């Protein structure tokens, strides 16, 4: 039997089979690997939160450390705030997301109980330039944020600016940008500003547990 591999019908049937086989294969792989991938994503998120809290988890299981420290999650609509207990002191961890030069950037901002002083930050990025914008994940850049205040003297939330060394911010505290990575640095600055305004509900309330109000709403949705 000799098939004419150039006939229209053959081409059509061949492509259909190829595409179906590939689709089934990829769907199977996706389905079977998904639980592991989701576990990895969750673990990565927990590690990043621990990084923002400056907890050393190299000697222990990160997930265990995470669950002993972070016991509460406050919800404000879409926004989530993680409440951690570090040696008796309460820290709030706020997830951040924004845009860098090539793709998304994100991070976690850990605040002290006064909802003003920055305890620590952690940043991540999708595809910033290695050696330039990608330096936002490194300690020298992140360490600058520690001890800065997100509020001005009047108590309004004004964020912390990321500025080129030598320039001064008006009415807010600042850290140095990464030289050669202006757009990524500005991205971090903008991310902090816009995200903090989204957390206004959390930042402007006095430290009260908001759990009871959130729970019934969740049940209705289900």
């Amino acid at each position: 039997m000799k098939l004419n591999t150039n006939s229209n019908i053959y081409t059509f049937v061949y492509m259909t089979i190829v595409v179906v086989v590939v689709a089934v294969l990829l769907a199977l792989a996706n389905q079977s690997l998904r639980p592991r991938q989701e576990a990895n994503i969750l673990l990565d998120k927990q590690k990043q939160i621990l990084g923002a809290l400056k907890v050393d988890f190299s000697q222990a299981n990160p997930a265990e450390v995470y669950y002993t420290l972070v016991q509460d999650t406050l919800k404000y609509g879409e926004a989530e705030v993680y409440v951690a207990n570090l040696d008796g002191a309460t820290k709030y961890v706020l997830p951040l997301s924004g845009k860098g030069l090539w793709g998304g950037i994100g991070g976690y901002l850990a605040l002290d109980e006064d909802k003003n002083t920055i305890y620590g930050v952690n940043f991540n990025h999708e595809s910033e330039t290695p050696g330039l914008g990608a330096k936002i994940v490194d300690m020298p850049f992140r360490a600058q944020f520690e001890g800065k205040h997100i509020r001005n003297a009047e108590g309004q939330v004004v964020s912390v600016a990321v500025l080129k060394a030598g320039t001064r911010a008006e009415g807010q505290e600042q850290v140095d940008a990464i030289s050669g990575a202006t757009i990524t640095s500005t991205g971090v600055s903008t991310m902090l500003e816009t995200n903090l305004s989204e957390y206004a509900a959390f930042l402007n309330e006095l430290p009260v547990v908001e759990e009871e109000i959130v729970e019934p709403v969740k049940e209705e949705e289900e």
Partner: protein
Amino acid sequence: MLSQKTKDTLLGPLNVNNPVVVQILGICSALAVTVQLKPALVMGIAVTIIVAMANVIVSLIRNTIPMRVRIIVQLVVVAALVTLVSEILKAFAYDIAMQLSVYLGLIITNCILMGRLEAFAMTNNAWDSLLDGLGNGLGYALILVIVAFVRELFGSGQLLGFQVIPQWCYDHGYENCGMMLMPAMALVLVGCVIWAHRAYNDKEAK
């Protein structure tokens, strides 16, 4: 052990028939991932594995592929492999998957893959195609590593993230070359590698 032809298929792409410096393929990804050594190494390994696997698959089904849609079939094979590898990496080596991020997807458009599938796998048996894929992938990785080595060393004074240029040099006025971090420098360096390669091989030929 290996016949002359097998040797040529496997080792040729490392030098006289290198995909980057002789065939001038895969230049764009060479610019993107060579700022540091580690992503360059990982990218090199990923491309080697995928080009070898794609070569074997296309070679096995080469007689059934309708000529008019062969490029589409090759593309489907490559895209399926890249997606599969990225899913597996996300499940078992999450850190590496994050490190490669978009570049992993960009392997689909790496011209080395299409070039080898079209030029070699469509007309050769599976074993030769495997060797050709490995050879070309390694040839690509070799150039990436050379360029990344120079760029990371002079651009950030580091290799694989470890500081190699001592603080002493910085104290005495040495500075990292910021130019090395720019994509344009990768092109200049690839040019230098091509120059050195041509000069050496022309001498050999005479």
